[in-house]
């Protein structure tokens, strides 16, 4: 049985904000299906009694003193922006016509 359908790949691409082409959908559906088959192997040993590890270094809540330090200037922060206006990032419209 296939793990993942072409429609599911289209949905994933939408969730991930990637406008994939029709041709890519076919390729990715086949490849992701194969990869998921291979990685599903983790289920063989992942028993209920085994705690998960999210990170190799068990650190929590690393704090530093809250003091003012120099950061990027407004010009530096905007220097790499695709578009800037009046000292701000300029972005395309966020709301649709109907909203």
């Amino acid at each position, binding site marked *: 049985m296939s793990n993942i359908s072409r429609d599911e790949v289209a949905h994933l691409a939408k969730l991930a904000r990637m406008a994939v082409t029709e041709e890519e959908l076919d390729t990715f559906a086949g490849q*992701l299906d194969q990869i998921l088959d291979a990685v599903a192997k983790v289920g063989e040993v992942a028993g209920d009694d085994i705690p998960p590890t999210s990170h190799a270094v068990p650190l929590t809540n690393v704090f530093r003193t809250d003091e003012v330090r120099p950061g*990027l200037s407004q010009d530096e922060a905007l220097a790499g922006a695709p578009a800037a206006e009046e000292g701000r990032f300029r972005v395309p419209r966020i709301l649709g016509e109907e909203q």
Partner: protein
Amino acid sequence: MSDLTRLTAAELADKIHAGEVSAAETTQAHLDRIAAVDGDVHAFLHVDAEGALEAARAVDADIAAGTAPASPLAGVPLALKDVLTTRGVPTTCGSRTLEGWLPPYDATVTRRLREAGVPILGKTNMDEFAMGSSTENSAYGPTRNPWDLDRIPGGSGGGSSASLAAYEAPLAIGTDTGGSIRQPAAVTATVGVKPTYGGVSRYGLVAFSSSLDQAGPCGRTVLDAALLHEVIAGHDPMDATSIDAPVPAVVDAAREGARGDLSGVKIGVVRELSGEGYQGGVLRSFEAAVAQLKELGAEVVEVSCPNFTYALPAYYLIAPSECSSNLARFDAMRYGLRVADDGNHSAEEVMSLTREEGFGAEVKRRVMLGTYALSSGYYDAYYGSAQKVRTLITRDFAAAFEQVDVLVSPTTPVTPFKLGEKVDDPLAMYLNDICSIPANLAGNAAMSVPSGLSDEDGLPVGLQIMAPALADDRLYRVGAAYETARGPVLDKLGELEAAK
């Protein structure tokens, strides 16, 4: 080719600090070598001749003034992987998304190199966002292996390892998430070290998989890697996962190892990292290396790490999951590429069209795989189970290190394959990381050191050494002892395609 490019970093440092040669002529010699061979090798995405020469001249001025050198490597030039930010110098991560981007700040690794007086020759090629084992996923074309220009230099840090093997740089920096320092080192007959996770700051390292990414040193000798390790390692408050502990004395360990005595050292051969899927020439090279370690006085035993066979599947769930989250930052709003901003498309459409155009196939695959593994309904079966496997692998290492000081295996199961051979078969490509991934999942230190050429095809093979977290010094002791006994592998320049 100038003799200066044939010397090790340690030898160059001695000559520069003794005033026998200047840092500027050393840097210029490497820039000339890059100009001569990089058209074939394509190790560099950007060469910063002016910046490197300026840094070199500052070292020369210090030496002329009688000031002590800023570090043991002051004046010795280096190639920096293009995933570490460099203020005002292009940083692309091998992606169209970041074409032309000039970072407004230096990574901590970059800053430490500058403070140590290490001239940065340029930025090296890599698989896009460090995802790959061949550099074929670079948006700017692949790097070629100096041993055979039709073959892959490893990946993701193929540019860094190729620059060393082609004598374009005596030192390089790589990053290793699942083997991206060690596998390129193995297939180019150079040395590469993945330090303990948290040993080198990740600040300014463009994130792929944050719980696995680790920057580390690359060189042509174990001592050179150790000298570079000490320059870049150490606690950094800018990285919350940076370990606040003294840097292991890796240079001392490399010098001790070079005396060629491993008596009292216990070495474990990992049973599971061998067998089916491994090239015969790789296994025979590994067996010869193990015999040599015994001759050096080490006690060698076989150990079993039964869960290592689950490391690859666990990695290809954890890394894509973290990548799908990390790469959300490339949203076409604050930096990088933006397409279709013509007034007719919404922000969300611009974002989707930009990511479609800016990302290559492997990045898209992993972002979708991670998005899937983190979806509700699939999370427990995939990401959750992978995290449990991570626990089991950490336990396997802990049990093994109760018996032995270090573990050894081949670095990668095959010698460098032909460009194009595996590019359309993601699963076959992923298998290159089968030996290197366990150390990333557990956060251990690991090294690849050249173990000669395969008797089948005459191509480089690497020996992997793995040590517990914060015991990086053991890698250098064992690696240097083995290197001394083995003799140099990369000494046959006439055999390098890149020399012809």
